[in-house]
C-alpha cells in the first residue's frame, strides 16, 4: 500500500468539495458526567464541551485554535482524529468521517498532544521511528528522507539513541513532532505543542512548523495558550469559549475587537509616584517597580524612549496580552454591544 497522494482526493466521496480540507457543520459534543452525591447515589449532568461549531479549513492553511481552559479545544481535536464521536452535526476531514473511518484517516493525519507522548518510553528514540515506519507502511526511501529532514531541522541527531525517558520536555516534544510527520500527513493537529517549553525550544518548534507549512504545504491546526505562537505562525485564528466559536479571522482583528493591551514592566532606581506618560497608564506599583498598560497594536519602542528620557530607568520587560484577557474583553464587548 502506498501512502496518500493528492489524486486520492479525486476518488473521495462527493462531499469533499472545493478547497475545504476540514469542514465542520454544527458539530456538538456532549459529555454525560456522573457526580456522586451520596452512597450509591449519583447525579447525571450534561457538559456541552463543543456547542454547534462550524468552520472550514482549506488545504495548506495554518490556523490557530485558542480559548481558555475547558473551552473545548482538545475535544474538537479528538473529534477531528476520530477518537471521539460527535454527538451532533457533521464533520469531514479530507472527505472522510473521522469516527467512522478512523484507521483510513489515520494514514493522512499527524497528531501531537503536547501533554502526552507517542514515543516508546523505555527505548531509544530511533526505535519509535522504526515503529512508525512499519505502522504507516512508509516506503523505505520516503522514510529515510523524512527522517533525515526531521532530524536535521529538529536537531535530533544526538538524541536518536537516547531512551525517551531520559529526554527533557523540549527534546521529547521535538521527538514527538518528528514522529507525527514521518508518514507525510496532509494535516497536522497540534494540541499545545509548546506547553512547558523554554523560549529557545519554543522558537525551534515554531521555526520548524513554519518551514513545514511553507515547504511541504502541510495544513496545520494548532491550539495553544501562548499568543506568541499564533502571532508568529498563523494568519488566521479561531477563538472558542464554552464550546462556541467566538471569533474566526486574522489575529489583528482579534486585538481590535478585544482592545487588548500589552504590559510594560519597568524597574526604576527608586520608589517614585506613578509614571505619567502619553498613551499608557500605570496599573500597578510595587516599590520601584511599575506596570504600565498600553494598546497591543502600538509599538513599545517610543514609549520606552519617553520613559527613559524622564525617569531613572534600570530595567524593563514587555508582557504580551494573555489570551484569557483578550477573550474576557471580547466577552465584555459582546455584552455591551
Amino acid at each position, binding site marked *: *500500500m502506498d501512502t496518500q497522494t493528492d489524486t486520492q482526493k479525486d476518488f473521495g466521496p462527493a462531499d469533499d468539495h472545493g478547497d475545504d480540507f476540514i469542514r465542520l457543520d454544527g458539530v456538538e459534543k456532549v*459529555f454525560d458526567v456522573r457526580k456522586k452525591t451520596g452512597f450509591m447515589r449519583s447525579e447525571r449532568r450534561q457538559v456541552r464541551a463543543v456547542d454547534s461549531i462550524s468552520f472550514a479549513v482549506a488545504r495548506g492553511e495554518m490556523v490557530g485554535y485558542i480559548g481558555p481552559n*475547558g473551552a473545548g*479545544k*482538545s475535544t474538537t481535536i*479528538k473529534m477531528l*482524529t*476520530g*477518537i*471521539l*464521536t460527535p454527538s451532533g452535526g457533521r464533520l469531514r476531514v479530507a472527505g472522510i468521517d473521522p469516527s467512522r473511518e*478512523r*484507521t483510513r484517516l*489515520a*494514514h493522512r*493525519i499527524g*497528531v501531537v*498532544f503536547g*501533554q*502526552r*507522548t*507517542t514515543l*516508546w518510553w*523505555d*527505548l531509544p528514540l530511533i*526505535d519509535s521511528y*522504526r*515503529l512508525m515506519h*512499519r*505502522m*504507516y*507502511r512508509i516506503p523505505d526511501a520516503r522514510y529515510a528522507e523524512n527522517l533525515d529532514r526531521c532530524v536535521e531541522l529538529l536537531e535530533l541527531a544526538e538524541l536518536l539513541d537516547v*531512551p525517551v525517558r531520559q529526554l527533557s520536555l523540549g527534546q521529547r516534544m521535538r521527538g514527538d513532532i518528528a514522529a507525527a510527520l514521518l508518514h507525510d500527513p496532509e494535516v497536522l493537529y497540534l494540541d499545545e505543542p509548546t506547553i512547558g517549553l523554554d523560549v529557545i525550544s519554543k522558537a525551534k518548534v515554531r521555526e520548524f512548523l513554519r518551514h513545514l507549512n511553507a515547504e511541504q504545504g502541510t495544513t496545520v491546526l494548532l491550539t495553544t495558550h501562548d499568543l506568541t505562537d499564533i502571532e508568529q505562525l498563523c494568519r488566521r485564528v479561531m477563538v472558542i469559549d464554552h464550546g462556541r466559536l467566538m471569533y474566526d479571522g486574522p489575529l489583528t482583528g482579534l486585538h481590535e475587537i478585544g482592545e487588548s493591551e500589552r504590559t510594560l514592566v519597568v524597574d526604576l532606581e527608586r520608589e517614585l509616584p506613578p509614571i505619567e506618560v502619553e498613551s499608557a497608564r500605570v496599573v500597578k506599583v510595587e516599590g520601584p517597580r511599575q506596570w504600565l498598560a498600553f494598546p497591543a497594536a502600538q509599538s513599545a519602542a517610543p514609549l520606552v524612549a519617553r520613559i527613559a528620557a524622564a525617569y531613572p530607568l534600570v530595567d524593563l520587560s514587555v508582557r504580551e496580552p494573555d489570551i484569557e484577557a483578550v477573550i474576557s474583553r471580547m466577552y465584555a464587548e459582546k455584552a455591551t454591544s
Partner: protein
Amino acid sequence: MGTWRLYTAVAAGAFRRYATYRVATAAGVFTNTVFGLILAYTYIALWDERPGLGGYDQSQAVTYVWLGQGLLAAVAVMGGGFEDELIERIRTGDIAIDLYRPADLQMWWLAADVGRSAFQLLGRGVVPMAFGGLVFHLALPADAGTWLAFLVAVVLGLLVSFAIRYLVALLAFWFMDGAGVQQLAVLAGLFFSGMTLPLNVFPGALGELARALPWSALLQAPADVLLGERTGFALWRTYAFQAAWAVGLLAVGRMVQSAATRRVVVQGG
C-alpha cells in the same frame, strides 16, 4: 504482510524493553527461587503424607512447583503484564494516542505481551527451573517431542492469559477505579491456574469446575503435558481446550473493545 512486520516490531520492542529492567529481573528470579524452595519442601511433606496425591508422584509434584515458578512471570497471574499499563493509559487518557493510530488495539497489546512473555520465559523462567533441577530430582522428559508439545501448550496458555487480562483491563473504560476488579482477577488466577496447588488434587465439583475454567490453561495444562500425563488423543484434547478458551475470550475481547471505543469517552484534555 505489512501488518505482520508492524506487530513483530512491537513484540521485539517489548522484549527489549523488559530486557532493560535488569534489577527487576534479578529480583524476580531470586523471589521465584525462594518461593520455589518453600513450596517444594511443603509439597514434599504433603506427598510424604499422601503419596500419589492428584495422580502425581513426589518428583512430579516437585517438578510441578518449579515449572510453576518458571512460568509465573510469563503467564502474569500475579499481574505485571501489559494490563497495568493499559489500565493506566485508559485512566489518564493516553489511550487517545493508541486509538488514532492505524493499528488494532488488541493486536498491538497482544504483540507487546508476546514480547514481554518471551523475555520473561527466558529471563525469569530458565534460572529457577535450572536451580530446581540442581537441588531436586525433577521428572523431566528426555525426548524432544514432549518438550515441543509442552512449548505449544505454553504458547496456548499465554494466549488465554492475555485474553483474560485484556478483558479485565478494558473494564477500566467503564470503571475508572478498576483496581478492585484487577485484584479479584489476580486472586482468581492464583487459585484457578493451579499456582498454589495442582488442580487435579481438588476432589469433586470444585475440582471439575477448576479444571474447566480458562485459568487451568495457563499452568495446569502445560504442566500435565510436560509431566507426560497427556499423550496421543489426550494431548489434542488439551490443546483443543486451551485453543477454545483462547479464541472465545479473544473474540469477546474484540466485542468489548469495539463497544468501549465507540461509546466510551477518552479522558483528559
